[in-house]
């Protein structure tokens, strides 16, 4: 039994959920893991109340980054931008359910960083634990 590459991780890597583009997204953000150059592009559609109604992502990445973002996108339905911005790292790490070494941490957190960046309308910090603030002041999509 492989710990890091357990079945669920490989399943999400080989067949990522919510994979593809959303052409009429309300929020989107693209970012890179500076360590390896991997890119992910995330798209979010919001409903009338400003909550996530649809989410998707695309890009190239390793098993860890792809699985992490795939799992994360499964959980975002119904969240407000404020809630997205405040998601802690542990949210993703718990979803992965495996020990992540320091060198692979950015792989695990790339998707979360992009979710927060899309919600903020600007690049979020890697260590961002959720910033208070009025999300309505954040500019939208793809800056």
């Amino acid at each position: 039994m492989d710990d890091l590459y357990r079945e669920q991780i490989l399943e999400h890597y080989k067949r990522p959920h919510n994979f593809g583009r959303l052409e009429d997204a309300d929020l989107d953000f693209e970012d890179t893991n500076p360590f390896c150059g991997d890119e992910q592009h995330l798209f979010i559609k919001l409903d009338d109340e400003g909550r996530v109604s649809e989410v998707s992502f695309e890009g190239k990445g390793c098993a860890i980054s792809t699985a992490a973002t795939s799992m994360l996108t499964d959980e975002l339905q119904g969240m407000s931008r404020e809630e997205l911005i405040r998601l802690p790292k542990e949210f993703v790490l718990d979803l992965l359910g495996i020990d992540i070494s320091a060198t692979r941490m950015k792989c695990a957190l790339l998707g979360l960083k992009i979710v927060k960046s899309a919600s903020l309308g600007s690049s979020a910090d890697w260590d961002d634990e959720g910033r208070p603030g009025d999300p309505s002041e954040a500019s939208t999509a793809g800056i």
Partner: protein
Amino acid sequence: MATASVTSPAGSRSIDEIRAEFPILERRVNGQPLAYLDNGATAQTPLQVLEAMDRYWTEHNANVHRGVHTLSEEATNLYEGARATIARHLGANPRDVIFTRNVTGALNLVAHAWGRANVGEGDRILLTEMEHHSNIVPWYLLAKEVGAELDWVPVDDEGRLDIAALEGALERGPKLIAVAHISNVLGTVNPIADIVRLAHDAGAIAVVDGAQAAPKLPLDLAALGADFYGFTGHKLYGPTGVGVLYGRSEVLEAMPPYEGGGSMIRKVTKERITWADVPARFEAGTPPIAEAIGLAAAVEWLEGVGLAAAHAHEAELGAYALERLADVPGLRVFGPPAGDDRVGIVSLEMKGVHAHDVSEILDRHAIAVRAGHHCAQVLMDRLGVAATTRASLAVYNTREEIDRLIDALHDVRRVFELG
């Protein structure tokens, strides 16, 4: 099985004897003996080099070119002696050998000092698609600053430079061509003497990134005629923190300073500063003294093994690796086939598995390789990949380590259920 050996004019040393000079190679990682195949990033350092640096620190440490006390004189002699050793190794005059912090430092020095004096608006700078970022970014910065244009020599499908395209690009009259002697991703040995000649015929200077070549090939820089040639210590069995920039005398003599500071001046008054002679003009501040001594010791160590013998061993091992890799399903192996223009640097992509995951699983087998874009994103784009896994060989590597690499790649397939 007979023990492999390296035979050189200096004698014959078995690989086991060579390995014994590298204590780190006895390390175990994840419970298994280390197979260090990341030499293109950093090679390991033999005891002879560590001892040379240790001796400096414990017996001679002082600043150079300053005091008249005994230790300072000893340190100066050791430092300048290191320059002389390296110059002899390169077939160069010591005056033409500048110590830098690494090859990045060497290339930035050229881009700043030569580039700002000689490249202006509308001028062209010729690069190749296989360059490391250290031989792209300094030129990009220069081009942005002065309004120059970058041109690119393409890489063909086998991983060689398109020399016809290079000749065509030279017809546009670039001020310089910046080119790697050996690609850090593909292991391609570029026909550097031909490129230098073509550049000179077109009125361009040639700046050569020798980071991967200096540890592997005998060099005669005076005969090669390159205007600048840079390399780094830590890929040549030496320490980090030191590199070398060789420059052709006429070019160096005419070149203005790079960084300002101590050592690089002749006289400083409030009104006027005059510059020190070459090479001191380009070595502002206290240099990496112990590291320069270490690099010279590394050069002597490599000469003791014999560059030709080391190269033959690595070439044989590289060819063996290419042959074995061809039998692993789902692998795309980059670079030219085994031959005179290919060294033991092997980049690969396993279909369906990201390079980082390959590397992670290899590490479980105590096999150290590099995964990523190798600071060569222009080349990654050309190859159509985001990242590759790279094994890069050194003189102390063995067939057994290649066999372990192959077995571990099969394990990657097993973990990722690739059948």
